[in-house]
């Protein structure tokens, strides 16, 4: 079964644009208007690629990732920042390991779709290329 995509963004227009784009490609999508809603989806069992905005009210993208990691909700997911910030601020320090990619808005739809398909394929790989030491 294909893993799903979660778009976490406080802007309705962005969520709707991404939702329409991904649904037209047959991708399953879940939306969250903020960090708390994102955490709720993860606690309910969401596994997949999380497209995360940085600048959001109440809980921003970095705080949301810290909560994901601290609550043990990262495993089985890929986090991709989808942001208007050309480059990340220093608050990303310490979170590099958990941020697989960084895509800036406005995004190229073909490039976004290619990246999402690639990250979905990563999550579908089975364990055991060789034994961990």
């Amino acid at each position, binding site marked *: 079964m294909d893993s799903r995509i979660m778009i976490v963004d406080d802007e309705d227009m962005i969520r709707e644009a991404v939702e329409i784009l991904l649904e037209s490609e047959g991708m399953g999508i879940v939306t969250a208007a903020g960090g708390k809603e994102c955490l709720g989806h993860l606690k309910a069992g969401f596994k997949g690629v999380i497209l995360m905005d940085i600048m959001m009210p109440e809980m921003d993208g970095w705080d949301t990732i810290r909560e994901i990691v601290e609550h043990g909700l990262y495993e089985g997911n890929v986090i991709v920042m989808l942001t208007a910030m050309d480059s990340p601020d220093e608050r990303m320090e310490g979170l*590099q390991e958990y*941020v697989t990619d960084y895509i800036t808005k406005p995004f190229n739809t073909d490039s976004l779709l290619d990246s999402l398909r690639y990250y979905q394929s990563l999550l579908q790989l089975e364990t055991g290329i060789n034994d961990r030491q």
Partner: protein
Amino acid sequence: MTANNIVMIGVSTGGPIALKHLFANLPPLNAAVVIVLHIPPGMDYRIARSLASVASMPVTLAGDGEYLHSRRIYLAPGGYHLTLHGNSRVVLTEGAKVNFVQPSVDVAMKSLLKPLRRKRIIGVILTGMGKDGAEGVRHISEIGGVNIAQDQESSAIYGMPKAAVETGLVDFVFPPEKISQKLVELLSGQASYSSKV
């Protein structure tokens, strides 16, 4: 027989796709390729398997005590620092994060020793936030190696490559596809080492 030459690649956010582009057209090299990617445990094997599907060389997670061999790609596992003993044997250690990360590119690169005559060390810094790898680049230059950095345009985050270039010790700046070509040239002994950027 252990590897004659070593290519050590340091990379972070944006790395999986940059590595995919780098390895997609790279023929087997007369070198062991060691990748230090900022990645948590649990994701590392997925990256290794994914790279194995596009690379012309076998890809494995580096194991503690393992000897490096040419024409193979070794990915540092998440949650450990990777160092090389005598430029040939992998040592994995736990401990404090360095530059906020584990594995750290600086830790891995600074464990490299001056190579024996006719053996080559090549450092590559790809996309990523922060400055991990800059000290490693400095060290590789000091021991007579060659440094390559990803260009700004193709980097998801131009942080680590920028910090590397700002040392003044990076020899070549390219997108991933051209880094592949340069690795082939360098390891076939055709290229000049003289063009510092």
